[in-house]
């Protein structure tokens, strides 16, 4: 009876411990110690210190071909094909549930495609030799053991990848977590977790980077640091694929964009070409005390429509032509603003979404 009681006690204790741990893993982030310390304040060097030019192993071209994933009746990714080129930052956009994360997981060998293929330099992820030296990834939900320090987390990854353990300290300094690296992961803020994820991705100095919402949880300074880092990495010739819902940032950062909706490709190309593909053309907002006179001076080449507060939207002629016309007619201009459709306009038109995550 005593033996049975002790057995039940041990079993119950372990059950309780494991349940508590599992529950904690899903807890919202605990913010401790205020905001994320500045990477510079923590002794971090410039964004690219510690990141030499990428090591060899091919140019790093990522090719998705007819990639498809079905979960029962649901088709999460539907015949997706696009190419991500080295030396460029490619923004990967789509509304919530469009299949972005599933696509990235298939690319990285974490989920099996139902059909099609995703390759890096012509090889599937699982076929890469030492992927730590070829591809780095930050995925949503990527985490560390709550009780393990950030430094130990990186050292474990170094060990598994055959990289000297000192690399963990180098990379911690680079992302500004040198001090925090000695603390258990459970005390990290969301921003610190993201930095640790980025550190893990950069351990092997890979030529290809796949970042799923890397700016989540970063403060404005952190976002700027990330932007400089990503830009610098691409300028060194790396392939950078970034999924994000922060459209303005993607527009400022990306060279190319891939937009998907309901698992299908809806737009693919350079940022400029995708912007130009939008039905709505560039228009100029004009404020003048003599709108009728300006309209008459511009003639039939310009399409003039009223805007709020007596202003005009003018399409068909550019700001310089409007300025010339105003000068010829002696009309004063109080405002002359060119309004180009931005990525958000394109996104909303192409995906038909009123709001994204």
């Amino acid at each position, binding site marked *: 009876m005593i033996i049975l009681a002790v057995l039940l006690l041990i079993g119950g204790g372990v059950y309780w411990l*494991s349940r508590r741990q599992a529950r904690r893993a899903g807890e919202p982030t605990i913010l401790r110690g205020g905001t994320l310390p500045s990477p510079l304040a923590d002794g971090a060097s410039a964004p690219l210190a510690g990141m030499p030019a990428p090591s060899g192993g091919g140019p790093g071209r990522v090719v998705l071909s007819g990639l498809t994933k079905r979960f029962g009746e649901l088709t999460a990714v539907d015949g997706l094909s696009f190419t991500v080129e080295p030396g460029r930052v490619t923004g990967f956009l789509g509304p919530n549930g469009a299949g972005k994360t599933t696509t990235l997981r298939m690319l990285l060998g974490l989920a099996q495609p139902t059909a099609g293929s995703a390759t890096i330099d012509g090889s599937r992820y699982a076929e*890469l*030799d*030492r992927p730590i030296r070829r591809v780095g990834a930050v995925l949503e939900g990527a*985490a560390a053991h709550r009780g393990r320090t950030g430094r130990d987390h990186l050292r474990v990854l170094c060990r598994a990848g*055959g990289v000297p353990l000192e690399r963990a300290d180098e990379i911690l300094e680079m992302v500004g977590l040198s001090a925090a690296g000695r603390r258990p992961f459970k005390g990290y803020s969301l921003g610190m977790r993201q930095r640790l994820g980025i550190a893990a991705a950069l351990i*092997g100095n890979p030529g290809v980077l796949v970042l799923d919402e890397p700016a989540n949880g970063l403060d404005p300074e952190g976002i700027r640091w990330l932007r400089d880092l990503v830009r610098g990495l691409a300028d060194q010739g790396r392939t950078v694929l970034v999924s994000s819902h922060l459209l303005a940032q993607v527009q400022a950062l990306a060279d190319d964009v891939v937009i998907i909706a309901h698992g299908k490709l809806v737009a693919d190309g350079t940022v400029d070409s995708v912007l130009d593909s939008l039905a709505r053309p560039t228009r100029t907002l004009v404020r003048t005390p003599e709108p009728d006179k300006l309209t008459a001076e511009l003639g039939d080449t310009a399409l003039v429509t009223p805007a709020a507060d007596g202003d005009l939207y003018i399409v068909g002629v550019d700001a310089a032509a409007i300025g010339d016309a105003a000068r010829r007619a002696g009309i004063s201009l109080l405002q002359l603003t060119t309004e180009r459709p931005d990525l958000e306009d394109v996104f909303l038109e192409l995906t038909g979404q009123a709001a994204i995550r």
Partner: protein
Amino acid sequence: MTTLDSPALARDQHTRTNPVWQVQAEIMKIRTTKLWWLLLIGVVVVTAWALLRNGASHHYEMYPPLDQFPADERAQAAAQAVQAKTHAGQAAIAADMMTSGQFFGVLLAMLLGVLTVTNEYAHQTATATFLINPHRGAVIAAKFAAAVAVGALFWAVSTAINLIVTPIYDSSQHISVSVVDWIPVRSTLLNLLAFIMWAILGVGLGSLFRSQVTAVVVAVAVYLGGAAAVLAAFNLIYLAYHHTWVLAAPVIAPAIASLVMITPGRAFDHAPPQWVGLLVMIGYAALLGTVGVVRTRRRDI
């Protein structure tokens, strides 16, 4: 930018993945959290408790307070005491003392094996693990290897305590059989086998279930509940089919197989020989390992 920016990477000349790295990483994972030493403290506690219990029980066996026994049992107790004091009896006692803490220690080794796999999902580290090493079979194999190391460590700690206490106890009880006599040594080595096999089974069980809670509950149930249930079931079958093999058949339960494996001679009436227990344990480890690898390979992370 030159490679001088990363002295660590400049020293990395490897071109191919070495499977040993993953084993080292798995051991490092265990070493860098509290769980292993909490369980190791558990091993120390259960070993100490078992030494006390075994010591008291064998003392009672060798030196029964005959005047307190009912008259009809007195002769039997005295005969048992005589038997216990023979060379074979003393060797059995020394062997029993040297394997103190086995019952719960093995359970703790198995739980650590389970948690090395389920922690990857509970803490969402499976993603990072499989990104670094996309060969999932190799990752599970590395976890098996790490479990062998953990099983051996737990055994070593338990055995070290037994090795200190048993000679003192033996001397106090006038037991002349040394702890380095073949019989206690054999039991101690079989004890190592039990620790390792159950740690391996733990990894196998852990890789079958994604939920940590389910895996732990099933593992504890297999270890504790399985034996009693299988014994009861085969006893019932024996009532219907009066064949001797039915009485040996409970060895198919891992807990009984383990008991058969570690017990010199026969663990129970009609028990099969020790090697059958060992084969059954290896069979379970191979089966669970194979199923675990196949399931882990197919799983979307």
